[in-house]
């Protein structure tokens, strides 16, 4: 009963806060509400028994995404939003169809096939082969490691996408974050308040997954998010995008991942399969490299395209 009550409140808050972030007039307000929403969502994930997701949501979905949007909102705050004035009728029309979509999806809850389907049992059944304890990590690094590999390529591409926007004369320089170093900006406030929350999550993660190897991945992303905040606060300098060391850090994870994938061709004879008994050590090596790369890439994504060559 207690739990249901909590869930009801949480669900209502999610809707309320999410809706608020949509209708908020001021963009900065909307973004900050969105970050709060993300934290609420992490709670919901815990309630859904998905702690791994909860951590990822807090670190990336709310933290890193929120940070990016705060930066953006700060910069474009002056935009007049002078655009096609939409008529009231159009608003109503949009609301009607959005509501229809929502109602349609909601109604599906009652028509999903009665007997829930699940891959939990097959996942657990073959998990011991890999030596992993966390079934989510098992999916990410064993059964569907191909997805995870491609996801790393996606991250690389995101970096290329951000770097594409540099001016030619600035290329090779340092990503610019200087504008956000005003000591009293909202950002600084966040930079001080968010790390402890992230830290709490990191502790929770460690506590929940004491012997669970999959924890390192989420931990890495949480720490990456924290590193970003530290960078923004100006504690650490941002490296040049052309620095070979930086490039190495960027590709280390994907490179190790690919190498282990190809190793599979040699040892068990299948791409992305692990040699007998070596699964766990290989995965650990991979995760260490990935943690580094993820942290660096996330940091660079938030730092934005290089600004000027000689700013350092």
């Amino acid at each position: 009963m207690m739990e249901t009550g909590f869930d009801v409140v949480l669900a209502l808050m999610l809707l309320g806060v999410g809706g608020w972030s949509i209708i908020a007039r001021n963009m900065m307000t909307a973004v900050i509400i969105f970050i709060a929403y993300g934290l609420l969502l992490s709670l919901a994930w815990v309630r859904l028994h998905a702690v791994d997701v909860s951590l990822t949501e807090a670190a990336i979905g709310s933290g890193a995404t929120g940070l990016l949007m705060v930066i953006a909102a700060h910069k474009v705050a002056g935009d007049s939003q002078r655009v096609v004035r939409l008529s009231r009728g159009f608003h109503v029309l949009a609301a009607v169809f959005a509501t229809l979509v929502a109602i349609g999806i909601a109604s599906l809850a009652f028509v999903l096939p009665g007997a829930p389907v699940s891959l939990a049992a097959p996942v657990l059944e073959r998990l011991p082969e890999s030596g992993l304890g966390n079934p989510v990590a098992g999916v990410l690094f064993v059964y569907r490691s191909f997805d995870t590999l491609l996801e790393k390529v996606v991250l690389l591409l995101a970096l290329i996408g951000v770097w594409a926007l540099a001016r030619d004369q600035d290329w090779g320089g340092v990503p610019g974050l200087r504008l956000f170093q005003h000591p009293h900006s909202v950002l600084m406030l966040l930079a001080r308040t968010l790390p402890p929350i992230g830290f709490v999550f990191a502790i929770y993660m460690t506590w929940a997954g004491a012997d669970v190897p999959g924890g390192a991945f989420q931990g890495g992303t949480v720490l990456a998010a924290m590193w970003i905040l530290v960078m923004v606060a100006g504690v650490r300098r941002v490296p040049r995008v052309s620095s070979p060391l930086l490039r190495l850090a960027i590709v280390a994870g994907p490179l190790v991942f690919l190498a282990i994938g190809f190793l599979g061709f040699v040892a068990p004879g299948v791409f992305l399969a692990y040699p007998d008994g070596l699964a766990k050590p290989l995965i650990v090596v991979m995760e260490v490299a990935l943690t580094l790369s993820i942290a660096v890439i996330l940091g660079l994504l938030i730092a934005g395209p290089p600004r000027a060559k000689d700013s350092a």
Partner: protein
Amino acid sequence: MIPLQAIAETGTTPGGALLVLGIVMPAVALVALIGLGGRAARMIVAAALLFQLYVAVRVALLVAGSATPLAYVVGGFQPPLGITLRADGVSALMMVVSAVIFLGAASFAWKDFAQARGQPEARLSLIFWSALLAMASALNLLFTSTDLFNLYVGLELLTFAAIPVVAIKGGAETLRAALRYLLFAVFGSMLYLFGIVLIYGAYGTLAISAIAAQVQPNAATLAAAGFVTVGLLAKTALFPFHLWLPPAHAGAPAAGSAVLSALVVKGSLFLLMRLWFDTFPSLREPADMQLLAFLGALAVIIGSVTALRQPRLKLLVAYSTVAQIGYMFFVFTLVPKTAGDIVASAAWTGAWLQVVAHAFAKAGMFLAAGLVAEVLGHDRIRDLGGLSARAPLVVLTFAISGLSLMGLPPSGGFSAKFMLLAAALAEGHWVWATVIIAGGVLAGAYVFAVLARMMAAPTKAAELASIGRTRQLIALGLASVSVLMGLMPLHPIAFFEIGRFP
């Protein structure tokens, strides 16, 4: 629980590893490129794309030789736990087409995105070549993966690779186009993803073969199919979801536009066809398929007319893509549910011929448009006069690409149109037949409008830049493929049918 035994043909076949290489090798090249920096870019890209062509041709030969699809179980875990790659006839076809066009576009762009010797890494070089490699990888993934979530990652990879190509030139208009493209495409992806969520909820698997084996027309599945389809429509830029396409395709560098128009929009279209013909063919509701055809018809008519009224050549070509995509959506209503008869095969072959012919014609046309802009320093259609004297090969390229777009024989465009029309008329789809024919007239009008300007006397003496012969020949070569396709007999092509799910 999961009917594991219901999953047919998921084992690795001989040569299946080629499918992995097709996806992974461009990724390896991408990692090497970023790690080593843009200075080594072109060598890496050349090696990767040549290897890709080799892989594609090998796959096609193996599929054709055995008349069965290739498959590879990644990581050794069969669905529903793991991911299987699978190449049937159309996968192999598209792999070859994309490998050839990538090579063509890369050779065309060879000089534009060069890296000066001894200079620090240039932005253009790193960005363009990285994006090209990522697109190549993502497309092969879309052509061969049979896991719906894996395909989602592929779709996103493709979009993220396309964005830098659009935005690379900078400038407000281009950036705006890229942003529109990204936001709209991500909207589409989210709808697609929700469809997948429903499918997983209903079947506990994301493998196409497993879903196909147990699909039921229940509410969840029907809604899932709707979300997935509409999401993919947004990514394919079917009218009126094309809002991002013309500015994005017109704003990219010529080689980029060629790849975007020829291949990238086909990625999500391929997936759409994979879904409706392989995953849940039994759910093809005539009313819904008519809705797709209706939007396709709007695309053909409105797209062509809008193309006719564009002041700039690249925009005209981009709107022509909007129109040509429309044709491809007739296939959903023209291939009857009960496949196997000659009408179904004709429509099926026609649709794929249209995809391929358009790919080559449009690649050639965009490269030609790029050369036009280079020769004249602008691409205003009104002032194209005198081009035929200065750059006859470019005009020829435009003309023969146009031949295919208008659907005049001999060209792949004609064969495609002829077969689609035959299927439409045999089934009594008079309205769609009329649209297909009217689209040809309108295409003729916009192609001729441009050709007439190109052939006209120069409007004013202008400083003309010179363009290399090699790039003209590359453009001409790609366009010629669309014409040579017209020499194939007008029969349903058996290769396209290899490995279709029953």
